[in-house]
C-alpha cells in the first residue's frame, strides 16, 4: 500500500481555506478515500445518523505527480483528525517551500511501540525542510472501503427536482433565528422552483417561502397553485398535485450544513431524495473567471430525514 504525491498551491488553498474548515464544522474526524483518479473527503458515511458530507476532487485539482498503489484496486481509505490536517496545511504555507510532498508512512512513535500509520507532509524550503507527521487510522478494510464506494455512488442518485438555494448567507441569517423557535425544520421543494423552510410547534408556525428559484430536473408549471393566497396553502396544493416533496430534518443538522458557505460555492441546490430518504444539498463551483461548472470538484451533503412520528 503506497501513496505519494505533491500538493499544489491551489490544492493547499482549496483544502486549507475552504473545504477543511467547512468539514471541521460537521465533525472532528473524517474519512479520506484515495483512488486512482480521485481524492474524496467523507463525513459520517459509515453510520446512519448525522450529516453526511462528501467532497470529491479530481487528483489534478489538488495534486501533481500522484502515485497510488494497493491490492484493493489501488484504493486506500483511512480516517484523519481534521484539526491536525488543518494545522499541517497551515504551517506548510508559512514555510514558503517550493514543494509540499504528502506521503503515507508507517513509523514507530517510540521504540517500544508498534509502527503506526501517518500521513507525512514534507515541505522543503530553500534553506530548511519541515516534516509533519499527522497520525491517521489503520487503513480501512476492503469491506469498509466498499461501503465508502457505495456512499459515493448513492450521491449520484440525485433527487428528481433540485432548486437553487437563495443566497446562503441570507438563508443562514433566517435559519439562525428560526433555530430559537424550534429544533425541527420542515424543508419543502416544489417543481415550480419554490423552497419552503418552516418550523411548527404547538404555539407557532413560522417559516419562509422563496419563490421562482432556478430548477434542475423535473419542473412543473406553477399556474395551478397561483390561486392560493398564502405560502402554506400554496405548499398544500403543490403536495396534493404531487409536485412537491416535504421532509423534516434536525435544525442542528441544517445549521451545520449551511457552514458549507466556507467552501465558497458558486451555486447551491437543494432537493429531496427519492422516497424521501434524505435531504440533499449539492454545491457547484465555477471555473475561475467563467460561469462554467468546474467538474473537477464537487460537494454534497445528505441530511437524515426525521420520522414525522418522532416530532
Amino acid at each position, binding site marked *: 500500500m503506497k501513496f505519494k504525491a505533491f500538493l499544489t498551491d491551489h490544492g493547499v488553498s482549496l483544502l486549507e481555506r475552504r473545504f477543511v474548515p467547512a468539514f471541521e464544522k460537521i465533525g472532528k474526524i473524517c474519512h479520506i478515500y484515495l483512488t486512482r483518479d480521485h481524492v474524496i473527503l467523507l463525513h459520517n458515511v459509515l453510520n446512519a445518523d448525522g450529516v453526511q458530507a462528501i467532497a470529491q476532487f479530481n487528483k489534478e485539482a489538488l495534486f501533481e505527480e500522484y502515485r497510488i498503489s494497493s491490492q484493493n484496486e489501488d484504493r486506500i481509505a483511512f480516517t484523519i483528525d481534521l484539526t491536525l490536517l488543518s494545522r499541517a496545511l497551515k504551517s506548510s504555507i508559512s514555510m514558503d517551500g517550493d514543494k509540499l510532498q504528502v506521503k503515507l508512512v508507517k513509523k514507530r512513535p517510540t521504540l517500544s511501540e508498534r509502527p503506526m500509520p501517518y500521513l507525512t507532509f514534507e515541505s522543503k524550503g530553500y534553506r530548511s525542510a519541515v516534516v509533519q507527521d499527522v497520525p491517521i487510522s489503520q487503513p480501512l478494510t476492503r469491506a469498509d472501503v466498499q461501503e465508502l464506494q457505495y456512499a459515493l455512488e448513492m450521491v449520484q442518485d440525485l433527487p428528481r427536482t433540485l432548486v437553487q438555494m437563495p443566497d446562503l448567507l*441570507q438563508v443562514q441569517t433566517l435559519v439562525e433565528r428560526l433555530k430559537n423557535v424550534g429544533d425541527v425544520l420542515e424543508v419543502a421543494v416544489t417543481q415550480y422552483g419554490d423552497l419552503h423552510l418552516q418550523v411548527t410547534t404547538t404555539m407557532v408556525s*413560522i417559516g419562509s417561502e422563496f419563490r421562482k428559484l432556478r430548477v434542475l430536473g423535473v419542473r412543473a408549471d406553477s399556474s395551478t397553485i397561483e390561486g392560493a393566497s*398564502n405560502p402554506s396553502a400554496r405548499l398544500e396544493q403543490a403536495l396534493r398535485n404531487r409536485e412537491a416533496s416535504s421532509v423534516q430534518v434536525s435544525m442542528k443538522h441544517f445549521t451545520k450544513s449551511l457552514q458549507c458557505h466556507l467552501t465558497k460555492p458558486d451555486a447551491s441546490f437543494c432537493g429531496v431524495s427519492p422516497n424521501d430518504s434524505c435531504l440533499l444539498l449539492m454545491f457547484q463551483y465555477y471555473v475561475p473567471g467563467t460561469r462554467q461548472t468546474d467538474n473537477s470538484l464537487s460537494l454534497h451533503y445528505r441530511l437524515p430525514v426525521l420520522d414525522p412520528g418522532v416530532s
Partner: protein
Amino acid sequence: MTSPLAAEGLELRCLLDNVQGLVDALTSIHWKKQQDAVCELSEHGMVITVEEWSCLQGRVYFRKELFRTYEYHADVRPRFGVSLGLLVDCLNTFTSSSGTTALELQYPGSDMQLTLKLVDANDTCIYAEMRTRIPDTLPRDYSIEDEGLPSYFAVKSAALKEAIDDLEWPGSSISITISSDPPGVTFKGEGHGDLQIEFLDNSQTDLFIAFHCDQIVSYRYKYKFLRATTANIPTGIMKDNRGSKLTIGAGGLLKVQHLISVRPSPTHQHHSDPSNTQQHGRVSYIEFYVLPDAEDGAEDGVP
C-alpha cells in the same frame, strides 16, 4: 357602514417598518425565559404587559404613529396572551429580511391567531402564525397620580444602568432616596457589604435631565426587581442613551420609564441629531412599576 377591516373579520391590520425597534422594546421587558405577556390593542396602538410576583410590571407602548399604517376596528379593546419569548423570537426572524418592505401584522385569524407576514422584493415571503391565549389574569393598572407632584428625576439611561449594575455587589434590597436639601438621589445597598451611590444635582454636572423633589422620600426595593428595569435593554438602545425617568409615587410605587428611538427603517436612517423634532414622534415608551419591599416599605420620611 362596515369598515373593510370588519368585513374581513379583523380587528387590527398594521404595517411595521422597523421590526427591530419592536424587538428591542420587547427585549427590554424580557427578564426571564418563560414569560407570559398580555397584548392590548386600541385605536392608539399596542400595549404589551408582563407581570411578575405582583411586585413588578413591565409595559411597552408601541403607539400607532410608529407603524406605517395602522387600521383598527373593534368595539371592545382586544386583549390576548402570548409567550413573550416566542413573540421576540418570531419577530426576530423577520429582521433577517434585508429588504425595505414592511411587516404586516393581523389579528385575529380564524383561530384567534396573530399572523405576521413580510413579502420582499424578490418574492420571498416570511410568515408566522402565533396562537394566542385568553389571559388568565388581567395586568394590574398601576399609575402614579400627578396630584401633589410626586418626586422624580431623569438621567441618561446608561448612567442609571451603570448605577444599578454596580449595586449588584451588595444585592438583596436597595433603598432609593430622593432629597431636596441638598438636591440629589441616593441608592444604598446593604447586604454582603454596604454600597452607596449618589447622584447630586449641582451646576457643575449636567447629570440630571429633570429633577423634582418637594419632600424627601425613601423606599427600599428588591434588587432583582430594580435590575429587571435596566438589565435587558439591548446595547444598541443604550448607545442611543436617551433618558430614563424614575418617579416615586404614593406608598413608594416606583415607576421607571425609558424612551427608546424607533427609526423609520434601517435604510431610511438619517445621520442627524436624535433629539431633533423630526424624530420626536418615533419614540416608544417602556415602563416598569416596582412595588417597595413589603417588610419595611413604609419608610417615608427621613431614613
